[in-house]
């Protein structure tokens, strides 16, 4: 046996496969893959303990490019496959790669139930607001009115806000990052990895073929600081090119205020990802929908101490065994009333 309990000298290369990557050149998925391959070696987990599970879609090709155990399942069902694996094998480090269609449309049911159960899975939801693999239909996160192949006159349905959906499902860790913000993305992945329960990470990702520049207002160098606010634990919500704007809490409303002219950072909302008040993270999640507000990135919510589903299951088995002793098959077969027929 190898001595895998020692520190593991993995590098990014250890997590790369020999498979030809079949994402379009310029796809945001490359950046996400690179970030994950950079972070996994840092986690101090034996490589064979990692499992990456996906559904269907461009994002779901992810496992083929990770040199770990991997399972490319069927459309929308990755959280359910991963749940079955994680609750029977809590020793494994199970990550789910999914997209806005896979996770929020066909797999919406599994997503919310995985989150409410708080299964110890890390979910990377690549949100490009489009169906890429099927060549350009609108997705449940496409903005209303969007013209796509399947909606030549524009969509008529309202989109999901994935962060709000995850929060509403009582998720214990909800975060957002962006494909091209590599440092922020890696930092967010590290935090997700450290979270014991379900960690839901929305990654804003560019599909340069079917929905190019979907996130341009956030990623464009000049606009970035005006349109993005970083959520940092214990820090006020400040943004703007000159860090001259902030978010203030006024009753149950958020407002954008200018910092200066008597208003200091001390007047601003100080982020607390551990806040147990559900309304708090909801306010943050819906902020971007109001005119003049930036889009928050970072950790919206982190409730580290909520028991995990697999822990509860294991505890129940332990308790029953302690009370009734380990199962005895011969006894089980003879349970209830029996009678003997003599020769």
């Amino acid at each position, binding site marked *: 046996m*190898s001595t*895998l309990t020692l520190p593991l000298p993995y590098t990014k290369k250890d997590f790369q496969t020999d*498979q030809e990557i079949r994402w379009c050149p310029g796809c945001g998925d490359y950046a996400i893959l690179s970030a994950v391959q950079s972070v996994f070696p840092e986690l101090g987990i*034996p*490589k*064979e*303990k990692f*499992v990456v*599970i996906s559904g*269907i879609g461009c994002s779901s090709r992810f*496992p*083929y490019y*990770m*040199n*770990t*155990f*991997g*399972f*490319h*399942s*069927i459309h929308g*069902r990755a959280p*359910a*496959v*991963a*749940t*079955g*694996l*994680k*609750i*029977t*094998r809590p*020793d*494994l480090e199970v990550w789910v790669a999914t997209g806005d269609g896979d996770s929020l449309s066909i797999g919406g*049911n*599994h997503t919310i*139930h995985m989150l409410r159960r708080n299964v110890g899975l890390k979910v990377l939801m690549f949100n490009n607001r489009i169906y890429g693999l099927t060549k350009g239909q609108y997705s449940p996160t496409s903005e209303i009115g969007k013209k796509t192949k399947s909606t030549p006159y524009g969509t008529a349905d309202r989109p999901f806000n994935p962060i709000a959906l995850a929060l509403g499902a009582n998720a214990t860790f909800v975060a957002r990052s962006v494909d091209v913000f590599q440092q922020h993305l890696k930092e967010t992945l590290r935090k997700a990895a450290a979270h014991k329960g379900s960690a839901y990470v929305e990654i804003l990702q560019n599909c340069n073929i079917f929905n190019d520049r979907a996130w341009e207002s956030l990623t464009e160098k000049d606009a970035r600081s005006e349109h993005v606010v970083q959520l940092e634990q214990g820090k006020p919500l400040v943004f703007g090119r000159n860090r001259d704007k902030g978010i203030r809490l006024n009753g149950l409303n958020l407002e954008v205020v200018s910092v200066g002219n008597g208003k200091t950072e001390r007047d601003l909302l100080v982020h607390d990802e551990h806040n147990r008040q559900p309304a708090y993270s909801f306010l943050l999640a819906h902020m971007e929908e109001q005119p003049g507000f930036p889009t928050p990135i970072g950790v919206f919510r982190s409730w580290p101490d909520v028991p995990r589903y697999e822990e509860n*299951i294991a505890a*129940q*088995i332990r308790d*029953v*065994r302690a009370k*009734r*002793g*380990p*199962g005895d*098959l*011969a006894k*089980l*077969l*003879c*349970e*209830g*009333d*029996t*009678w*003997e*027929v*003599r*020769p």
Partner: protein
Amino acid sequence: MSTTVAPPRERKRETLERAVVRFCGDSGDGMQITGSQFTNTVALYGNDLATLPDFPAEIRAPAGTLPGVSGFQVHFSSSDVYTPGDSVDALVAMNPAALKMNLSDLKPNGILIVNLDNFQETDLRKAQMSTNPLEDHSLDGYRVFPVELTKLTRAALKDLGLDAKSMDRCKNFFALGMCYWLYNRSMETSLRWIEDKFKAKPQLVEANRTAMRAGYSYCEATEAFQITYEIPPAKLSPGVYRNVSGNSALAMGFVAASQKSGLPLFLGSYPITPASDILHELSGYKNFGVITFQAEDEIAAITSAIGAAYGGSLGVTSTSGPGMALKTEALGLAVAVELPLVICDIQRGGPSTGLPTKTEQADLLQALFGRNSEAPIPVLAPATPGDCFWMALEASRIAIKYMVPVIVLSDGYLANGAEPWKIPKVSELPEIPVKFETDPEGFRPYRRNPRTLARPWAIPGTPGLEHRIGGLEKQDVTGNVNYEPLNHERMVHLRAEKVAAIVEDVPDVVAAGDPSGDLLIVAWGSTFGPVTAALRAQRAKGRRIGHVHLRHLNPLPKNLGDVLMRYDRVLVPEMNMGQLVMVLRAKYLVDAVGYNKIQGKPFKQSEIEQKIEELLD
């Protein structure tokens, strides 16, 4: 309470070979409990038996109405029992609706016990009866015993301080007590059961026990029955027996498979009639380390089981037809990734929601072919409730040995029906060897065992075996994604050959009855009972008939084709439009004829016999 309120009278006691008793009433009347209590008692006495619970899909249809009628039939005997009985010797009807729905099955001059208190004008109206059958001579051909069950039960319980509603809930035990007296059975088993069942509520223990004793004493004290019956114990093969229903047997079978394989058992399931009892039972077996996952839907139920199997557990999912339909895509995934998995389909009447509580065998073609593309899956079918135990073990063994999903086709009748089951010794159970791949040297995820064509089971956590699997077509041996035309064709053939190779594990069929002759009956699943009974009766009349009961529906036994040729005619009775017969005709070019009943009810022995006579005369 004493059981002797009057000196015993001289009454005639007649010894019979067999009797069929049916309890029927409102779905709130406790008929299922009454029936299973009677069943347990006759089983413990040593009779062979078969039961047929028959209940509506509605939990409580409006009281006293026709749709709310629930029934439980027990056939018990001093010799072999194969069916719950074509017709009934004694019928207990708690109200006019129950009487109306069940009377046609009562034999001429049969015993009919009715609750007289429930034959008021409003009760008759609810049952859509214009006249009172107790007064209009429509029951003249039966031995009718109108008993004031409600009043007598209340009178017996008046000192216990219960409200009227609680007292009325005990009247089924009054009726049960009467039947125990009628068939000379001890109340001991049921008295113990009541004590255990209601131990948290001593008042209810007292009430139900008192009601049952009162029913027994009522028969003893009154001149009601001039005759009682004795059905001596059956000569079953020596051993220890218990009663078992198909769903209980399946649940125990999977626990046994888990123990024999050393794999933890995982059940992913979503509640659905008539499969839910498998989930209920397994959820109680936590001390065996069983994990039951009540999933958010049928799809999560099977995909979670696939995830568990991927991690090295014995993955099982249980459902019925509508759930099977939802699991279809995931079944294809299990075929593609070649992981062991057992899928139990407890068939019910369809299409769509259909008849949730009634039995049918119409999912056979769905099990065999109901997936996109070429996705062969082995299919097993238990023949009796007790056989469900063995089929659970066999399905698990095949799934693990060949790295395939396996479907077990049970049905509502097997699931809820009970029979005496000879308890096997643990040492008699088949071994289920498991080998996880551990050697990274030359490891290829789709390199096959040359004999079984199984790929290695390489579970996450094994150093050096990191690899990827999925629903996309794979290259032979390496398992890498591959879309090449010839590779795809090769993989399609390999998956089919692997399932076909399982035939090596399928025992040859041996026809019951005549080894060759005028007619071969080929059947599968829960038709075993009526076909066996019909075969015996018809052979006793001198006909040359054989019976092959298929427990393996894919692959079919190697010698089946030869056996089919040994008879002039082939008859395939099925509770569907003719699914197995279609397969047999296609595969063996045999001119088999179907006999089909699609009424949500099992075949009667007499129906099969009639068909045999029709074919041979």
